[in-house]
């Protein structure tokens, strides 16, 4: 690092990169709307592929997400899907996780430079997507073999039953999502872990949503809506913390937003035409493909950091191209799945409607 000072580069924006960002935002938004919150996981790697350092990609992604989360939370609150109290309690502890995670990230930046954050974000991505993608895929296989009625009857997990039975005086609050009293003490690790993950890869929902469902016993639809409250609270905090470090690129965040808000509505409308297991399948496939793409960048980062013998530049470049290609494939798969599900669903729906209209005329 020259003179002890450090240059943090924002990417050069020209018409091509702007259009790519808008398109990536569009696909990311579609995936996000389709699988619920958490679709932003395709956006961080895409921004890094365009040349943004890991810390800038995460910070800008968080910045584009939090006002969107607020708008989403307000909307879904109207349908009674949001447990505001639970969201705020978890949000407070998530904030602590974000603050801690930001310290880890800036610590890495100050010690190893921006490329250190590239490696850190990539490794966190690979670990998280492997775990979550694996679980989602397992869930998909289970759901696929169940009838609709059986799917509705899936009850509380044993863990959630136990958590709801624990009464610690002075720490209890009523969660209307879980329809039970819960102890704040359980919220500390869940919130903290959610915030920490958000600060590392810009997607905290991977922990928050499953934790609410399987540990606290909140129904899935309320968990994903309540997560929006957490995402807003920790996103606002995260943007301020990262903004103070000078790493929020508002141009990149707003270009992603431009595409993403168009996409998110298509994705959300798409879900009304498909079955739950199809959504799970899409989610697993995209996650595992994105994970796979990140592997190809790691040797380059390790070489730059001096953690391994640097590979020849041409090899690093070829690996990067393969990584870019795999990521592009993931985005394409995501877009294709959502749009084809939507079109097929709309066609069938129209057909059924016209048949029932004919039948009622015949009656």
């Amino acid at each position, binding site marked *: 690092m020259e003179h*002890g*000072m450090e240059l943090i580069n924002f990417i050069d924006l020209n018409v091509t990169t702007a259009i790519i960002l808008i398109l990536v935002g569009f696909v990311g938004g579609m995936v996000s709307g389709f699988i619920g919150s958490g679709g932003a996981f395709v956006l961080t790697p895409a921004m890094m592929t365009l040349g943004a350092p890991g810390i800038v990609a995460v910070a800008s992604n968080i*910045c584009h997400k939090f*006002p969107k989360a607020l*708008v989403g939370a307000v909307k879904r609150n109207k349908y009674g899907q949001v447990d505001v109290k639970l969201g705020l309690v978890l949000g407070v502890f998530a904030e602590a996780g974000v603050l801690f995670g930001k310290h880890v990230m800036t610590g890495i930046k100050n010690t190893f430079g921006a490329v250190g954050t590239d490696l850190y974000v990539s490794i966190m991505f690979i670990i998280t997507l492997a775990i979550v993608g694996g679980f989602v895929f397992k869930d998909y296989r289970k759901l696929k073999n169940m009838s609709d009625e059986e799917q509705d009857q899936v009850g509380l997990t044993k863990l959630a039953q136990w958590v709801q039975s624990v009464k610690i005086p002075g720490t209890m609050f009523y969660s209307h999502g879980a329809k039970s009293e819960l102890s704040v003490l359980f919220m500390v690790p869940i919130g903290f872990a959610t915030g920490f993950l958000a600060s590392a890869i810009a997607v905290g929902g991977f922990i928050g949503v499953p934790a609410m469902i399987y540990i606290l016993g909140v129904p899935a639809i309320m968990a994903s809506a309540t997560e929006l409250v957490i995402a807003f609270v920790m996103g606002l905090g995260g943007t301020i913390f990262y*903004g*103070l470090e000078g790493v929020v690129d508002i141009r990149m965040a707003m270009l992603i937003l431009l595409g993403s808000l168009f996409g*998110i*509505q298509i994705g959300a*409308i798409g879900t009304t035409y498909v079955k739950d297991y199809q959504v799970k399948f899409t989610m697993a496939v995209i996650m595992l493909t994105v994970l796979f793409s990140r592997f190809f960048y790691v040797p380059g980062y390790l070489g730059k950091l001096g953690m391994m013998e640097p590979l020849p530049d041409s090899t690093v470049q070829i690996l990067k191209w393969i990584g870019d290609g795999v990521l592009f494939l993931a985005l394409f798969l995501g877009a294709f799945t959502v749009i084809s599900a939507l079109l097929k669903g709309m066609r069938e729906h129209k057909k059924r409607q016209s048949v029932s209209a004919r039948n009622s005329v015949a009656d």
Partner: protein
Amino acid sequence: MTASQTSLGRVLFWGGLTALLYAALFHYADSFLHLAHTTQDACAVQSGMTVDYYNKATSELCGEKGGTFIDGTWWYVFAPIALAFALSYTHGLFTGLFWDVVGLKAKK
């Protein structure tokens, strides 16, 4: 006025406002970048047509590099936040109305 004309009007209104905000963001992009880079102490060094901003700057280090030392102003952090809120609101309304007008609707 018919219902479809009213909703078309609303699409155009929110779309126009969104376009205006985006135009402002990119017209003043350099200023926004300046704000982002100077929430903490920074060193601005002219590099060709662009300005490079260095973090972890002190006036001595910056002087050696031939740059201009800038004292950080923490509350600049609210500039991107304000814009993000404004754009999420206007653009969110616009896209919702847009798909409605186009005829893409959720299954009832």
